[in-house]
């Protein structure tokens, strides 16, 4: 679902998973003024209907909108411009700073989060599009004391630590899907995350150790 196709995306109530009753804060007039689109566009048939125009409005207006995000099981509210990424929304509006902004272009993985069970880059998703989805961040994974966190420490899988949050989340998401990985699978599974200090040797071991821990179960309270 993307905001350019479904204007309701911005007004979904994440708790009920139903469209919220509240009116979209983005008015059609505001959109047309903001985007510099004249009435001629409508009459020329470029936008087929007022509904479509409203959909575009949600996408391109810079007016801030109130959103609610389901992060680590908590409903968090923020008022952000539609162009704010999920990552920046977390870091700049919600004080959730574990995920880091590094490349800001979906390459390095420092902003990795888990959305509806899928490992994603927080910098490649708009905050308004993240409404109605279940977002899991390192803060949530740490609160539940997932064994991957201790295994990173045991294997000294970190130096400066700036890539580490993304690595930990990516590792957790990887183990969710593949609880018994081979070493080769670990290397591939973490291919979407980059480290500058060069901590991969420890990280690869940490993921294998956490996999063993998770299967053993008894040793941790995860």
């Amino acid at each position: 679902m993307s905001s350019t196709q479904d204007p309701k995306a911005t007004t979904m109530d994440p708790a009920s998973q139903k469209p919220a009753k509240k009116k979209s804060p983005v008015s059609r007039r505001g959109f047309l003024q903001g985007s510099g689109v004249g009435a001629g566009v409508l009459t020329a048939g470029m936008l087929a209907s007022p509904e479509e125009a409203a959909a575009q409005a949600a996408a391109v207006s810079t007016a801030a909108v109130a959103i609610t995000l389901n992060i680590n099981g908590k409903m968090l509210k923020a008022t952000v411009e539609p162009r704010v990424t999920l990552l920046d929304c977390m870091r700049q509006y919600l004080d959730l700073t574990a995920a880091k902004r590094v490349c800001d272009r979906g390459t390095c993985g420092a902003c990795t989060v888990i959305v509806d069970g899928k490992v994603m880059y927080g910098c490649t998703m708009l905050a308004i599009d993240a409404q109605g989805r279940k977002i899991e961040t390192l803060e949530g994974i740490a609160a539940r004391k997932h064994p991957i966190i201790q295994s990173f420490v045991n294997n000294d899988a970190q130096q400066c630590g700036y890539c580490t949050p993304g690595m930990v989340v990516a590792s957790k998401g990887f183990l969710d899907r593949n609880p018994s990985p081979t070493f080769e699978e670990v290397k591939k599974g973490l291919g979407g995350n980059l480290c500058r200090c060069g901590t991969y040797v420890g990280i690869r071991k940490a993921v294998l150790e956490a996999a063993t821990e998770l299967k053993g179960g008894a040793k941790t309270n995860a």
Partner: protein
Amino acid sequence: MPDYSWPPMDKRRVMGKRFTRLDGIAKSSGAAKYPSDFGAKDLLYAVILGSPHAHAKITRIDIADAKAHPGVTAVRIISAEGKEMNWVGQEIASIAATTELAARDAARKIKVDYEILPHLVHEHDLAKAGPRARPAGEQTTGEPEKGFQECQTVVEGTYNIPVITHCCLEPHGQVIQWKGDSIEYWPSTQNVSGIGGDLAKALGVPVTNVHVQMEYMGGGFGSKFPSDLWGAECAQLSKESGGRPVTLFLDRAQELMLGGNRPSVFAKVKVGAKDGKLHAWQSETTATGGFTGGGMNADLFPYVFRDLPHRKVNHTAVSINTGSARAWRAPNHPQQAYVTFSAMEDLCAAMKVDPLDFFSNNIKMVRQASLRDTYLRQLQKGAELIDWKKNWHQRGDMAKGPIKRGLGLGFATWGGLGHDSKCRTTIHPDGTVEVELGTQDLGTATRTMIAMVVSETTGVPHTQIKIRLGDSRFPASGASGGSTTIGGVSVSSRKSSMNALEKLFEKIAPLLNTTPDKLEAVDGSIRVKSEPAKSMSWKAACQKLGIQPITEMGENVGRNAPREGLISQGVAGIQMADVSVDIETGVVKMNKLVIVQDCGLVVNPRTAESQAYGAGIMTICAALCEERIADQQTGLTLNPDMEFYKLAGAGDIGEIIAHMDIHPDNDKRGIIGLGEPVAVGGIAAIGNAVANAIGVRVPTIPLTPNRVLAALKQSGHVNGRSIA
């Protein structure tokens, strides 16, 4: 004066153990707060507008619309009309606003007109560089011409290494709040004790007005020492915005273009051997460090094996229109190692000798005589770890099929003497040991190692020592650069803790019916050395202090340190690489990288190995994928991002073995820094392994598939068979 010397190797209880880092959980749980994580209710976001041109003069600048943009609190002109911009990204204006997006929108509203001027962004062609190339040192030893005539084998080659960038994951930047006389400064820095003074100077305020704090930082690698223009701008924006805190961090493109880079080297080398011994060396090198040129200590060529009879070296520095170089982990050494050991490996190939034998036979050419035996021992160890005798072959893998395997070798050296450092240890009546010093932990486990040193000294478990660093109000320590930190902080924290302990002993001795010199602090208790049964728990002893804690200082003075014997300098290391190359695709795959490194007394082998792994991986990045690409047509850097500026990932590095050369001969030299030397020899080792595999030298790194295929094509043959 107490005896500060380290306990003998076999008597140490804490130092030398494989402890995990104390801030590990903070980092892996996301709780660690970096300067760029700083949040405050009234925080403002600042951005820098940079030049879109590599060389241009500003003819007009108009910030009126930017100032009027909603949410903007301050706009400052950095480069006024008439100012020449000398690289893409060079700072023109700074903007602060209530949101980052508002600041970026406002930056786009700044109108700048330019007079475009000619630029140069490539350094390798001296003919095109013209007056921007400057001679930067020439040296002659012996009689090079005669020397080469005496050689039975002489090879010539070119060896090129491009500019690479630091690409710190946390970009350069800071948060600053300037309110009245107080400047609160949260930088991402390698220089907690020094950076406040640097900022104060730039702002023209007393240094005492600036308070620096930093718990964690996201990578520096030599590029984060000064407060920089961005620090001063951030401070001024805060002041002009009524004293609200301002966060200003470079964006990714700026980080790669402005945040620092390592100079290139383009080398033409001639090297010759006489009777199996290195006899003559000649190198002509060209490099750039950006607009300021690119100096290099030509005295280092040839690297490590420097004491050969005849040599002639000269260096040319070229100024180009790109951001300036900064110190990059072991400045100059990786490039010089690459050029030196590539040429010497080519010499070995021409002589058809095993490089392992060649370097062993030439060990007397190693300039630092004290390291010669260490190198020989390390060569042996490395050969064992990579199975050199079994896997090495003459140049060109004769195996059938397109996958060719080869081995290569490189050497490293570095100083690593501890910098000046002061430390304060307080023993509190409740038994808490508090250690304060203005150093920083870049991810090298400095916190953990200080705690281990203090634990070794006081007998209090290292996990219970309260380490406080990252604050300019603590006793000053040097900047963390050049592998100088561990030497500095281990001496200062050892001395301050031992001085404090002496005071505690004076208090406790009468209670145990003895004298202070007869006491020792071990395993959480204070006891009489000769009668261990006569003891008192640490906690009980500290309670005797009443309400008055003991606070003592300790100091390392770099220049005096070697005499005291706790630390020293000068290390040896070797790197060996095992690669497979697909000659149909040109893809180089790392099988194994072996690092054998001495750094004297190793405080924590686990975190030392991590340093070595990381540095090894950095050399793999540089050897196989990292390169800043500039376009002469437009003057632009084409890959100021992380998609096309390539770093290796978890699947690209093969197996890495880091063997710390822990040996009584090394240990007795005391503690020596480690970060730099392990980052030196890998590039040469990998390049040599590729040449050993495919039978030809690929002259320019990174060894990308197109370069490997081009070298094969140019040679016209693979392993003796024509591929024409």
